């Protein structure tokens, strides 16, 4: 089986689907000849031509508006937003239009499209090349939100997302892009949306993470194990709709939960997970649910490793929660 990093796996997914389905088109700033600033779309213009992989003017709202128009017609556009920090000029098209089209038209129009965009810190990107805006999309009814943590999932989830009949925000953890290679099957396979994965098992604390922070959660879990604390580590993969059953099943066993994410804490997705666990597993809780997250500040440059919820900050939370 070929070994690929996440960039290659995503590129491969796009190729597989563009070969299968002529309705799949890729658009965005620099996605053509350059292949995207992270090279995820490299070579697609060569293989599929300018009509199926094309550069756009510098206007994210236009990228989304045009992609929505294409999806309304029946194509399956896969717009790229160069960094998720730059998705906000398109926020109106996403929350007012994309998310509501099926609903507001009584189901007459649908917008199946996938917005691919790199997310998160760890590349010394400062304020504007590091943010994680997932909760700003989860709150908006009508959007699915995906964030893979590894090349295998990335390919399978992207293929599912493109074939899904609902709009998907597909966040790609840029710190993981080239971090590691893994076995990635050639050709077609999918990973269903909405299913989390338990990537490490343990009976003491449930840890929920996704994207780049999954590795930090795992590293912390490993260190915790040396202190006799065994963690259930869940890789959400799809953030919304949430695989609540997976989380609740785990918390029912552990009675404890730590949620890890890069985004600022307040009104981050962690608060929703905590609130849901309260609803569904209150009597199982033996310690207060804990969030280990980015601080409630803009994303800093020099001190980014003190901002991110890396293993050194997750570990004490695991220990405290386990010993509570």
């Amino acid at each position, binding site marked *: 089986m070929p070994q690929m990093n996440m960039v290659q796996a995503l590129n491969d997914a796009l190729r597989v689907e563009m070969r299968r389905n002529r309705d799949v088109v890729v658009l965005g700033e620099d996605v053509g000849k350059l292949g995207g600033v992270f090279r995820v779309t490299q070579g697609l213009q060569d293989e599929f031509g300018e009509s199926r992989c094309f550069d756009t003017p510098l206007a994210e709202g236009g990228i989304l*508006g045009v992609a929505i128009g294409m999806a309304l017609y029946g194509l399956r556009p896969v717009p790229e937003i160069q960094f998720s920090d730059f998705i906000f000029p398109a926020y109106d098209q996403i929350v007012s239009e994309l998310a509501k089209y099926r609903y507001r038209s009584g189901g*007459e129009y649908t917008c199946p499209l996938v917005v691919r965009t790199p997310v998160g810190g760890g590349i010394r990107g400062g304020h504007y090349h590091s943010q994680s805006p997932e909760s700003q999309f989860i709150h908006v009814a009508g959007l699915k939100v995906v964030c893979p943590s590894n090349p295998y999932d990335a390919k399978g989830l992207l293929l599912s997302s493109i074939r899904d009949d609902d709009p998907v925000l597909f966040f790609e953890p840029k710190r993981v892009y080239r971090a590691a290679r893994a076995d990635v099957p050639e050709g077609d396979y999918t990973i269903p949306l909405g299913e989390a994965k338990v990537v490490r098992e343990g009976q003491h604390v449930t840890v929920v993470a996704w994207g780049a922070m999954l590795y930090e959660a795992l590293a912390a879990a490993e260190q915790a194990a040396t202190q006799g604390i065994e963690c259930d580590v869940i890789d959400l993969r799809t953030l919304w709709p949430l695989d609540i059953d997976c989380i609740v099943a785990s918390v029912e066993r552990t009675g404890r939960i730590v949620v890890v994410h890069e985004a600022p804490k307040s009104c981050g997705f962690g608060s929703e997970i905590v609130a849901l666990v309260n609803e569904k597993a209150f009597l199982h809780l033996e310690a207060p649910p804990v969030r280990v997250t980015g601080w409630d500040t803009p994303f800093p440059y020099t001190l980014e490793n003190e901002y991110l919820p890396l293993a050194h900050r997750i570990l004490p939370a695991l220990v405290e929660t386990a010993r509570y």
Partner: protein
Amino acid sequence: MDFQTPETTLANVPTVLRADGSADPATDPGLDAQLLRELMRAMVRTRIVDERLVLLQRQGRIGFHIGSLGEEATILGSIAALRPQDWIFPCYREFSALLWRGLPLGTYLDNMFGNEDDPVRGRQMPDHWTARALRIGSVSSPIGTQITQAVGFAMAARHKAEDVVTMAFFGDGATSSNDFHTGLNFAGVYRAPTVFLCRNNGWAISVPTAKQTASTSFADKGVAYGVRGVQCDGNDVLAVWRTVRDAVSRAAAGEGPQLVECITYRLSGHSTSDDPKVYRADDEVTAWRRADPIARLRRHLELKGLWTEDEEKAWAASCEAELKAAIEGAEKKAPPALSSMFDDVFAERPWHLEEQCAALLAGPRAPRGH
């Protein structure tokens, strides 16, 4: 108060219908008698519906109406100039497009009442309809958003080698929106077969065009995008038809996107929620009433012997009757089913919506007319 009279605003704009009701032979598009009469009938019907809906709102029987009083020629002339395969991306004043393309009046009224038969299932305000089967888009409130979508749709059709032009309707105020800028720019770059139809009706609620932009005209904004821009007298249905048909032909022929500014006037308030007396002079409105698009076409048809007062009366009476029946039908229908509130958020309901739906159904009902 600043003043925008038809005389000053339209001074340099091509017109077909002259004051005496004759058509300028140099510009007359030469529509056949049947089409002329259909346009007349549609404009009369539109106005009747408009005026009645305002009344219904005043009576508290519907929540809202946003109409096309004074803009009938701009809207119907443009729609009529499209080819059957062309798609319309409406703003919110174009209900006459629905009717022109054959939507039963009753279905439009279902939307106005937001009842169980409303195609959009009572989810949006009145006048926020959808009609995919008629090749008409979905109305939303945020200004301008349909513009970029119309461009993408046209590009998609071209990708599938379909001979389709899209037409995006919007107002003068919408030219300030992000999507106007981006839509025209993208269309220019990709030479999308889209006609941008700017209904310049003089006002964006209380903001007059002079405060909307310092450009010499809205058509001139095409320069910024390499998009051909033209103006026409939006109260002259023949001028509108001629200008738009030319634009559609050019777009279809691969000449790229077209920007058409129809200069017209909003004779009513912005919507039933508005009181225009606060911000504009009666004299301005009076001046524009003299340029009434229906009166202008009527004069022309009468001159041509294609229309009579009696005929209009009979037609109006039949429209009124149809409307009355449609209102009665729509008004007595039930609201949409409770559980429909959770449909169509996604293709299939995820667990959280199933739970919420169950909770709603199991819980007490809201007080009526809260």
